[in-house]
């Protein structure tokens, strides 16, 4: 492995808080920082496959511009000079946005997603687009049509998914910050698998404008980073009301990165016995119990809660998400953009051939599930019933969260599984989302933070959930754990 200059190779390890200080003082330039990360990606990403596209020129141009403005005493944004990796599901003007699908392999959006606008306005430096499960459908990043991403802690293992590229890029120090999207756990589970922090905001907290939709009522964009404070900083820069998204919430954005240092007094942490049942890996269970002890040692009260409808969450989720997906993905028909089959007999055949050849198996499986669930005669029994269950799940959480400040649980039933281990068992793959997808159904914010390692040396995460729009509380509670532990400071050897 070629060696870089010591100064350059150190930079990707420096915490974001310190990078900001150095950038502000002028002892570090945005160009130096971008080059250090681009260099590391160039050297190491072949073995991980985190990036689908590295925009070296665009990143350096943006960095130069930031440096120039800073030198001239002109204002710069709150993320000025910090590199960021974007999940390839958010539209970037002039940069291909593939959703890791053959369907959009050559699709170049003419517009930036809201989050991309916000990141550019904050002067983040976009390094490129990172890998994912095709159209964000999956929990392993193996459903990428282009290549799987490997877990930086063990390349035989999956980084999780669908935001596997985002989590791997942050863990591998390819980018201090990354954007992911979470429909059923797609930020939190890969964050847990890769030992980083990942936050799914309240539904509506971050605009979905420009996020290629998987399941519109569940999708949320969120931040991934190595520690709680930089996660808070990234969330702060992308949250807020956007009139172009009718589901966007018009609520103030608190200064998360400043407030997260404040511990929650008289903290009450809820836990559900159901979360520690059969199928939970022993290492994960002890890591979660240890995390609860960390809170107890800080004077927190641990309260057992009931989530009576949690057992129906997977079933409800796998009706609602595929139903919406079957509709959202109908636009990929080969007419206006994206892939079009070369051979076809007639119009209907063009639609069929185009979709048949350019969509992957998992995407097709979910489109078929959803099409079936929405069909005349089945709608009431499946989709409508799932919506009712969804309401009950939300009520469970509302009740529980009246008694506690946050709910703690595992993120996933076990640490990162091996690549290929679950690809032929879709149902087992779906059960990976057991602990995470309730937050999407209920619209709650959830965070995954590093909470230990398995005996095999793979990271384990702790999930915390809070009431809607209580991201600040969530970050403060997360920071209380982080302050007492050093799991987030460990780094994988590449």
């Amino acid at each position, binding site marked *: 492995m070629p060696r870089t200059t010591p100064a350059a190779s150190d930079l990707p390890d420096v915490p974001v808080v310190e990078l900001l200080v150095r950038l502000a003082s002028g002892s570090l330039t945005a160009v130096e920082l971008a080059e250090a990360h681009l260099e590391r990606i160039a050297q190491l990403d072949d073995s991980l496959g985190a990036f689908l596209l590295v925009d070296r020129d665009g990143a350096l141009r943006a960095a130069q511009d930031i440096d120039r403005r800073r030198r001239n005493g002109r204002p710069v944004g709150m993320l000025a000079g910090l590199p960021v990796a974007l999940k390839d599901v*958010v539209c970037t003007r002039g940069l291909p946005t593939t959703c890791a699908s053959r369907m*959009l392999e050559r699709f170049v959006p003419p*517009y930036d997603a809201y989050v991309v606008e916000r990141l550019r306005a904050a002067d983040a430096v976009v390094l490129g687009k990172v890998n994912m499960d095709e159209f964000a459908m999956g929990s392993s990043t193996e459903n990428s049509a282009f290549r799987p991403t490997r877990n930086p802690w063990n390349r035989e293992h999956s980084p999780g998914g669908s935001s596997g590229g985002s989590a791997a890029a942050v863990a591998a120090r390819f980018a201090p910050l990354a954007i992911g999207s979470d429909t059923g756990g797609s930020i939190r589970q890969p964050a847990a698998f890769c030992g980083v922090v990942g936050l799914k905001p309240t539904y509506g907290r971050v605009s979905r404008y*420009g996020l290629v939709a998987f399941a519109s009522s569940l999708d949320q964009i969120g931040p991934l980073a190595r520690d709680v404070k930089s996660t808070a900083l990234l969330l702060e820069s992308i949250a807020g009301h956007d009139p172009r998204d009718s589901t966007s919430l018009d609520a103030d954005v608190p200064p998360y990165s400043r407030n997260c240092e404040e511990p929650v007094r008289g903290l009450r942490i809820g836990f559900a016995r159901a979360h520690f049942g059969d199928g939970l890996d022993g290492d994960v269970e002890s890591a979660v119990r240890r995390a609860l002890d960390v809170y107890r040692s800080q004077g927190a009260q641990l309260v057992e809660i009931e989530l009576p409808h949690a057992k129906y969450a997977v079933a409800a989720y796998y009706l609602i998400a595929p139903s919406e997906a079957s509709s959202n993905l*109908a636009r*990929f028909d080969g007419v*206006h953009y994206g892939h079009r089959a070369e051979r076809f007999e007639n119009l209907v055949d063009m*639609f069929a051939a185009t979709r048949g050849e350019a969509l992957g198996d998992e995407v097709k499986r979910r489109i078929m599930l959803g099409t079936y669930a929405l*069909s*005349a005669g089945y709608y009431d029994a499946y989709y409508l019933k799932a919506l009712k269950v969804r309401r009950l799940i939300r009520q469970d959480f509302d009740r529980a969260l009246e008694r506690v400040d946050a709910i703690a649980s595992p993120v996933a039933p076990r640490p990162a599984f091996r690549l290929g281990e679950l690809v032929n068992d879709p149902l087992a793959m779906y059960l990976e989302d057991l602990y995470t997808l309730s937050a999407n159904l209920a619209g709650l914010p959830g965070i995954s933070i590093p909470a230990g390692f398995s005996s095999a040396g793979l990271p384990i995460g702790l999930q915390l959930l809070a009431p809607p729009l209580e991201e600040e509380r969530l970050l403060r509670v997360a920071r209380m754990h982080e302050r007492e532990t050093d799991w987030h400071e460990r780094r994988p050897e590449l």
Partner: protein
Amino acid sequence: MNSPTLIVGLEVHVQLLTESKLFCGCANRFNPDEPNTQTCPVCLGLPGSLPVMNERAFRLALKTGLALNCDISPFTKWDRKQYYYPDLPKGYQISQYDLPFSHDGWLEIDGDGDDGGRRRIGIIRAHLEEDAGKNLHDESGRGGDSRVDLNRAGTPLLEIVSQPDIRSPQEAKRYLEDLKLLLTYLGVSDCNMQEGSLRCDANVNLHVTTDDGKVAATPIVEVKNLNSFRGVEQAVEHEARRQLDEFHRTGRKLGDPGVEKETRGWNADRGVTFAQRGKEEASDYRYFPDPDLAPVTVDEELLETIQDELPEFPAERRARFGTAWGLSNYDAAVIVDQGAVFADYFERVAKTCGDGKQAANWVTQDVLRELNERQLGIADFPIAADLLGRLLAKVVAGELTVKSGREVFAELLARTDRGEDIGGGDIDAIVAEKGLAVVADTGALEVVVERVIANNPNAAEAFRGGKPQAIGKLIGEVMREVKGADAKVVRQMIVERLSR
């Protein structure tokens, strides 16, 4: 066998007159010459784009619902209607399925009789949806690629579904005409059928009483894309004949095994409906609530605001023109049916001249004739209502004869044709130039009468000899010399003079 009862319901699609489209900020304008120029990521259905409801379109829809006497739902939502077609870029149309914003209303139209009886045609529902784009196929026969223009995609479209209350082809036409008039009075649509902003489908069948006294219903046929009033009338008429004929031949009726609703097209040139391939195989639209859009709640306050914005409806206006201006039902209908702007013009003329009947005569005859000849709408008519009113005021006051008034009217138009600006001063100038002022000085007139009689002894003799029509020549001669003379007065004077 009794004559069969015709059962018709109309589904009307109306494009709303908004600045922008239903779910994005693109211009809502008919523009087939520059395809795909009024588009953005949202109406192109690009990945990641999201719809945002146009409040203005929704208010126009509410306005229409109220004017159609509909119940307005306090809670309404958006649904996705899913099917694949190249002019539908998202693969679904955003529409309203089980909770339309309005339902259960009616529109009153004239009945078929001459007794002035009115008929209420029920409205099942009116809902709002987005229009699709337009597929353009190569018509050269060389098999070129089809193209898609998405300028129209996302245009706000109101679907108004009537009850099957219509009983004759004439009623179908009147319903559509009255609906169009109402919508243009409301200002919610321009209802331009050529440009496709008003489109109509007709559901038609017959109830036939058979020899054994039972009533059989013929299979329901939906005739698509009727794009003129005459077309609706003729298509319904043709379809009624065709269905009766088919029923006599086959005996097939609604409810028989294998009988489904049939979709037929309308060939206006040949005046026949023709079979189209059965309703697309994909008849399961898999409707479900659009998760990208919030449901809409309509409170009493909003409804009251919109109620207050409602203009006078055509039916009310016809009645008022009768009572306030003394117009006949016929004249009132002719004026009101021309549209709100024309009716406003009439009222302005009537107010200025103070005589509704005089104003009605002029606008329904002179003004309408000029508009037709010039292919103009009233908004572009060169003689402003105030000006015509001032001209007619002179006629009403007896300062000008009707004939002279027409001459001034023609000269005013001639001046505008030459590009001149015209105003109140022009009326007086023309009257003076042409010597059109009514000559009230009977002394001066008597001199002329004397002279004309002297110069035309034969005519005078003939009149005296019992040929009253001979007076015409004498009157004409006098009128030629004194332009502003009142023909009645002249006649009177000649009669008196010759009877002495």
